[in-house]
């Protein structure tokens, strides 16, 4: 059985010039939303795809109230406290680190 050859360590990349940050396009935003859904706690799937609270047509699970700066569960009208969003983000981060 062939063994995988170890790559040489090589040298570091050069620093990124300019500000090095691009504003995400639509495809990138869709990928980020999918990344969130794949790693967040199940009850927060769809959070990144929240519709504005004024949008009565969308079927999204969550809406975002831009005046009160909070997410709301569309079905129940429950306002999600910021602390919950933080905890969900921490879970998202842990799963991305470890895969579980």
């Amino acid at each position, binding site marked *: 059985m062939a063994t995988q050859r170890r790559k040489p360590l090589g040298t570091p990349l050069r620093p990124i010039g300019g*500000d090095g940050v691009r504003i995400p396009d639509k495809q990138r935003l869709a990928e980020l939303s999918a990344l969130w859904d794949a790693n967040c706690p199940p009850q927060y799937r769809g959070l990144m795809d929240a519709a504005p609270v004024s949008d009565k047509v969308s079927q999204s699970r969550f809406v975002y109230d831009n005046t009160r700066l909070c997410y709301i569960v569309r079905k129940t009208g429950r306002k999600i406290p910021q602390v919950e969003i933080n905890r969900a*983000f921490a879970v998202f981060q842990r799963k991305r680190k470890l895969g579980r």
Partner: protein
Amino acid sequence: MTLIYIANQLQGGGFTLSEWQSEMREYLRSEYESAVILSAGGVRSDVTQSDWGYMGSLLKKQYQYLDSFASDIANNPAAWLNGNALFNRMQLYSDSAYTALENMLARKMAQNGFTEEKNMLGTADHCNGCLAQTAKGWSPIGSLVPIGQRDCIVKCKCAMKYRKPTGNGGYAYA
């Protein structure tokens, strides 16, 4: 690609240092982008040019730390390519996105007229800095030591609550 996979690839010889660095940059970028989108109300909200710019300034700082980390690895591979030191340090970069989320939220709240903040302890062991900030209760926005700048640095799992007066003696909470 998980963070531990990226670490294992470098340690196992599957990635060169530049490939590892490139993967780390992409990993961090997606964490910071997720944080700014969450703080702004999701991908359908208007994340402003200014929001992206602010995120960019935070991310650029992390890229600089990462460049320095890559140099450390190149200068002393034996210290990093065995054991847990590599993954442990890599985790700090990822953890910084949590503090970035809090920074972005604080900025947004201040921009939208919220005037007070209060520290809420997270589900973790608490450093003296976090306990001291919590003991202050409701305080003028911007007066508490920000998350990420206390004793626990980027390991912090606290969150901030925000409120503003409604004009009838009550408060509106974010």
